[in-house]
Structures are given as C-alpha cells and as structure tokens.
C-alpha cells in the first residue's frame, strides 16, 4: 500500500498522539515517514498466515496470586508530580463551571 504522507496527515496523526508539533517540524517528519512507510510496503508482497494462527507458543498470560499488597504510599506517589494540591495531582481545568 503506497501511502501519501501529507503535512495534514502528519498533523492529524500528531493530534491522535497528543503531540503538538512546531510548524517547522512537520515537513521533515512527513518526508521521513513517507520514506519509512514506502520501505515497509515491501510486506504487502508477502503471503502470511492469518492473525489467528500467529500467537506464540506458551499459552495464556500468567496471573499473579490474588493477594492484597500494600500500595505505593500516597506521599511517595505524589512526590514526583509537577503540581500537587490537597493530596491530589493538579491539572488545568477541563470542565466548564
């Protein structure tokens, strides 16, 4: 599949990734992604098994014992946060008053 990586497509993808690119970053990234995706298109020619048959051997993901453990203490969890107030993480307001 040949993909046309336009600056608009880069901006839309960056929006999905919550990445606010500067204007001068967009064109070089578009050109680089175009080149990389053109190379990856070589996979189109391959006949590969259906996804259902692709799980590695070894079976299901292991589960831990269902036993309570002490959590990370709140003070420690908050100690690395950029902004904290009243024992909570603080972010810009996102609900209208």
């Amino acid at each position, binding site marked *: *599949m040949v*993909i046309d990586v336009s600056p608009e497509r*880069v901006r839309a*993808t*960056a929006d*999905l*990734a*919550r*990445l*606010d*690119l*500067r204007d001068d*970053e967009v064109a070089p*990234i578009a050109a*680089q*992604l175009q*080149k*990389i*995706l053109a*190379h*990856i298109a*070589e*996979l*189109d020619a*391959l006949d*590969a*098994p*259906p*996804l259902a*048959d*692709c799980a*590695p051997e*070894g079976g299901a*993901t*292991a*589960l*831990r*014992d269902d036993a309570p453990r002490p959590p*990370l203490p709140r003070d*420690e*969890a908050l*100690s*690395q*946060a*950029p*902004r904290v107030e009243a024992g909570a*993480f603080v*972010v*810009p*307001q*996102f609900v209208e008053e």
Partner: protein
Amino acid sequence: MRHPMDMPLATSAAPSRRALSATEVCRAALDRAARLDPGLGAFLRVDAEGALAAARGLDARLEAGDDLARLPLAGAVVAVKDSLCTRGLRTTCGSRMLEGWVPPYDAAAVERLRRAGAIVLGKTNMDEFAMGSSTENSAFFPARNPWDRARTPGGSSGGSAVAVAARMAHVALGSDTGGSVRQPAALCGVVGLKPTYGRVSRYGLVAFASSLDVVAPFGATVDDVAALYAAVAGHDPRDATSDRSPVAELDLSRGAEALRGLRVGVAEEYFAEGLDADVAAAVRRAVDAMADAGAEVVSVSLPHTRYAVSAYYVIAPAEASSNLARYDGVRYGLRAEASTLRGMYGATRDAGFGDEVKRRVLLGTFALSAGHHDAFYGKAQRVRALIREDFRAAFASVDLLVAPTSPTVAFPLGARVADPLAMYLADVCTLPASLAGVPAISVPCGRGEAGLPVGLQLIAPHFEEPRLLAASRGVEELLGACPAPPL
C-alpha cells in the same frame, strides 16, 4: 600489581578471595571513571556515594565474619542502563521527559544485583527511550567508542558497552529490544547477551516495546556475562510475561570442547548486500575455527530475514506509541504549562520528546490508526509469525545459528543521523532473534576496518542459554577475548 578493574570478575571482585577490600576496588572504579568518562560519555551519572556505601557494607559484613561466598556478585562493580529504575537514584531513560525523575523502587534486575552483592556504580547513557542504534539520540550527550572517539559505540545501550569496554565497570546491564545490547557489544569489543524473552523480569524497566524488551547483560568475557545473567534470570510475579520454568544451570567448563559435535547453522540471508567485506571475512574465519574445533557447520535458510526490519519498525513503534502515552505531565516527569488540559498534554510531549521518539510515536500511532491497523500492524504481526517459524524450522536441524551481529564496524558519529531509514536498516542482523524471542549473544571475533572490533552473533532456541553460553565460551577460547582498548 594489575589494576583491579582489569582483572576478570571472579578474581577481582569477590572480597573473600582477594587482597583488596570492596571499598578499594570501588574507589579504583570511581577513579578510572573520573579519569576516562569525560572523554567517553558512558555515564549519565556516577553514584559515588551510593557505590561506596554498598562497598563499605560488604566490607563490614566480611569483617563481621559473614560468608560472602554465598553472594555470587560480591564486590562486582556494575553499570546500569538508565532505562532501569534505581530507588532514590535519578532515572531519565536518556530523555528530557524524565530528567528529574527519581524512582520510588528498584527494577527487579537491579534488586537481584544488589541482593547478589553487586555495587551499582552509576547509570549509563543511552538513546532516548532506547530508540536508536548509536547513543546519539541521548537527550544529553552522545557516548563515544573507546576504540575511536570519533565513532559511535552503537546503541541504544551504548553507555553500558563503553563502561565495560573501558573497564570502568566489571559488568553492565542494558536492555535489548531489537539489538540494543548485541550491537553495541559488537562495536565495542565486549560480550552482550540477549536472553530469551521472559527469562529476566521487565519489572522496573522503562517500557519501550513490551513484546520485545529484554533486560540483558554485558561483560568483557563470556564468564562475566554468564555470572551476571545467572544473577538476574528467573521468574518474577510482577511481570506477567516472566517465564515460570526453572533457570537451567550453566556449565562453561568445557571450553572449546563444547563445540565438538555441535551442529551449527549458517544462514546465507545474513550475508546479504550491505554487509561489509571485513565483517563477513571475520565472521567466516570464526565459523571455520568452530569447524576445526569439531563443530558440524551446515547451511540453512531463514527466508524471511530481510523482512524483519519492516515488521519490527511497525510493531516496536506501535507498542511504543501506546507505552509512551503515560508521559502526559500529570503524575511525574516534565510538564509544560498551558491553560487547557489538551494544550498541556501536547506542549509537554513536544518539549519532552526528542526527534526520534516523536518520529516513532507518530509512526506507531499511524500504524494503529483506523483504516491502517490491519494493513500495517496486523500484517507486521503476521510476518513476525513467519520469522518465528523460520527459526523453528532451522532449529529442527541445527543446535545453534551463527551470523554477524552488525553489518559494519563502529561508524562515525553523525554518519546516519540525517537518514533514519539507513539507521534502521543497519539493525537487520539483530532484529530477527528479537521478533522470535529466542536468545542471542554477540562475542568478539577479531578486527575489521581500522582495527575496530567485529562481533559474531550466536542464536539458540528458546531457553537454551546454557547451550548458547557454553558454545560462546568455546568460541572465546578459540579466538581469544577482545583486550581493553588503549586509553
């Protein structure tokens, strides 16, 4: 007397068996790092205080009559890649995003190191979030190859490889997602082992691509790598992909005799266009030496090898785009202030991530986005199954595979920075084993262009580390370990 950091781990470190105290060995390592590292850039930070405290603790235990022989790494000076969490010691993963972050816990592998008596000297330089093959994507400064400082040490665990090559640490931990331990080991003339996926706990390893990430040891010799591997391998309930099977005992005592009767497969797909002639010649000489020592060398085919780069550069960025969503400026790490929540997320991620990380987050987000998911991510997973099947079929007829580790010797700083695809294509020899999850190691096998080290890659079936390490020890006996570079 020889410098304590120039001796093999077994004779240099164990305080109960040598003339120097752990504190004296630790000071020797700190002095060497202070002298050499300003020109090499292996360490993002040296923890002199923590290292000396650990060394003094060992000496005090010895003084009190404690039997330190129970501790397999007693007194070993270890460098730890900055992608592994260290309690109370800053862990940046080579990124501005985590520049000031101090983890509240140790990674499982670091916990096991400390329990085994090792001394953590410091945190090593790396490509940001382990995305790169030269350590030039470090947000702080590039690491330099100790054989030629105008060249890269490889990456992403370049700092750990340099720390061992320059004998600033006895051994080092790195992480290998697509070759990030094997390739720098090859380029710096040391040994680097990527264990089987799931053999070493990923708990506390900053996540890049979770289906590929493996915590992996470096050493100057196969014995040293084996000692570090044995200390960190084993089940850990905190990592859901950690394997529950017991870790098999290692026996490296047979030396080159371990090669007698071993069926060794050589896949011509690894000797394709792009492989430098000097590297190919060194690898072929190593294979000939193995045959002379009694190995049965046979030609095999792994037909999907060339597609590993494309499959990897869809799967790894897709997983990374999901894993790196956690860096949002809320709970830890960098925050760029903005008036709205969405604005804060976007500005934080633009300011905190470097170019290569942004490129891979975008590539991964694109590959997972509506309308492209099946064509890219789904297809890449299906090709990954073909690559896994290549190895399964090959291992039906051979015990081990041998190949080059890197298609070139160490390349000049800056040579591939402007062309990300060229950098990706150079990972062609290491990516297949990563995608298949099988163990693989790089051992030095002579010199190439400009006298620079060349690495031989040996690959074994899942969980056959004992066979892989015994054969590697045999190769080392035949070819000799790489000496330290003149510094």
